[in-house]
Structures are given as C-alpha cells and as structure tokens.
C-alpha cells in the first residue's frame, strides 16, 4: 500500500513539475530563438566564396536535460505496446534546440555573422548504469565566421 502511495506521489510530482518545467523551457527557447535569428546556422561543409567573411572560430554549446518521473513511467508503458514514445521526443527536441541556442549565443558574443558546418553530438554519461537516469546530453558545434573590417 505504501509503495503504491509513493508511486502515485512520485508520478504526481513528476507530472506537475515536469510539465511546468517543459512549458517554461519551451517559452524561453522560442524567445531566444527569435532573438538570435540574425545568425544563420548552416550544416554545409564549405563556406561561401565571399572574401569578406574570413575570421573563423570554433563555437559550441552543450546541455544535459533529464526527463521527469511521469514521462519515464509513460515511456515504460509505451515499451509494452510499441509505437512513438512522444514523452522522449520532446526531451530530445528541447535538448537539441537548447544546445544550438547556446552555440549561437557564443557566436553572438564574438560578433560572428554566420555558423557553418554545424554538427550535433549526443553523448551519454549514464549509459550502462543499472538505475539509469533518463537524460540526454547534446553537444552542438560549428565554425563561426566573422566579417573582417
């Protein structure tokens, strides 16, 4: 009985805080994406033949985001029947966008105009651990080019 109460409490706490945190995070992501729209992020490997863009520097951004208890529970249920695990999709989406935003913020800090050859790397601190923490770790990096005066 106590186990059940604990489980329900954890689920409720996870649902409450998790949903709130996700909403707030998405709001902040969208605001910052609008602010940083001026710096295009391009995955092309080669810079344009444009002599004015010359100063290059590596910029990167990283983030580690964990999923809440409620979503992990949903994902475990989903595992039984198969199909899209929507609860993890939003987690991965948030992490990637956040990492790219941090990279763009760094580029803005050095007054860069454009970011080329952006790569996304997903790492795992917790892989292989028994009570694995459901978290995703994203590193975004690229080359920021600046107009030389």
């Amino acid at each position, binding site marked *: 009985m106590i186990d059940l109460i604990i489980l329900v409490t954890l689920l409720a706490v996870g649902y409450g805080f998790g949903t709130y945190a996700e909403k707030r995070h998405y709001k902040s992501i969208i605001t910052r994406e609008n602010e940083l729209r001026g710096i295009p992020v391009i995955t092309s490997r080669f*810079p344009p033949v444009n*002599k004015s863009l010359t100063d290059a520097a590596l910029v990167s951004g990283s983030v580690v985001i964990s999923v809440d208890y409620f979503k992990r529970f949903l994902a475990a249920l989903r595992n039984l029947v198969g199909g899209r695990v929507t609860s993890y999709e939003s987690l991965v989406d948030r992490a990637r966008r956040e990492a790219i935003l941090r990279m763009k913020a760094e580029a803005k800090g050095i007054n860069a105009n454009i970011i080329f050859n952006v790569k996304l790397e997903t*790492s795992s*601190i917790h892989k292989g651990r028994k009570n694995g923490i459901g978290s995703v770790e994203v590193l975004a990096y690229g080359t920021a080019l600046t107009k030389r005066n």
Partner: protein
Amino acid sequence: MIITNIEILPDKRIVEHLGLVQGSSVRAKHVGRDIMAGLKNIFGGELKGYTELLQESRTEAMDRMIEQAEAVGANAILNVRFSTSSVAAGAAELFAYGTAVILE
C-alpha cells in the same frame, strides 16, 4: 591558433599538412552530484552539474589537442570533430581530433 571544423578557410592557403592531432578527457562528478541528478530525475529539467561536466571535459580535450598541435608547430587545426563515449557509469569521455596545418 585558428580552430575550425570546416575543411578550407576562405582567404587562407594551407602551406603544409602536419597530420592528425587529438586530445581526450574522461571526467566524473562526485557522488553528491550524482544523487542530485537522481533527485532531479523525478522533477525533470536541466542537470546543471552534468552540463558543467560536459563543458569542462570539452575544454580539456580541446586544450590537449591544441597542445599537441603547438608541439608539431602548427598554427591552425582544421576539420575538428568531437566524439563522445561512456567508459564507466557516471564518467564521460570526450574526444576531440582534427588536422594540424600551417596556414600562410
């Protein structure tokens, strides 16, 4: 030292290729951080301690790569890539590698 992950730089010519340079770092956080991360796992949200860990290991891997490039006399590293793996539970390996070159 110019570090980029594109293969050619506009306006600059490669004088000499010096080969691959690399740097890696394996780091772990203390148990307190792991416990905090476990708690945070109930509420969801960013794990600041682990973000820091990732950043520190990235900086260190880059520093080691730059050290190696300086040792062979390069003035730029092109085509830099990052790669990650997990060696043990709670530890993150970050590996950076690129081509050391001399630019004119």
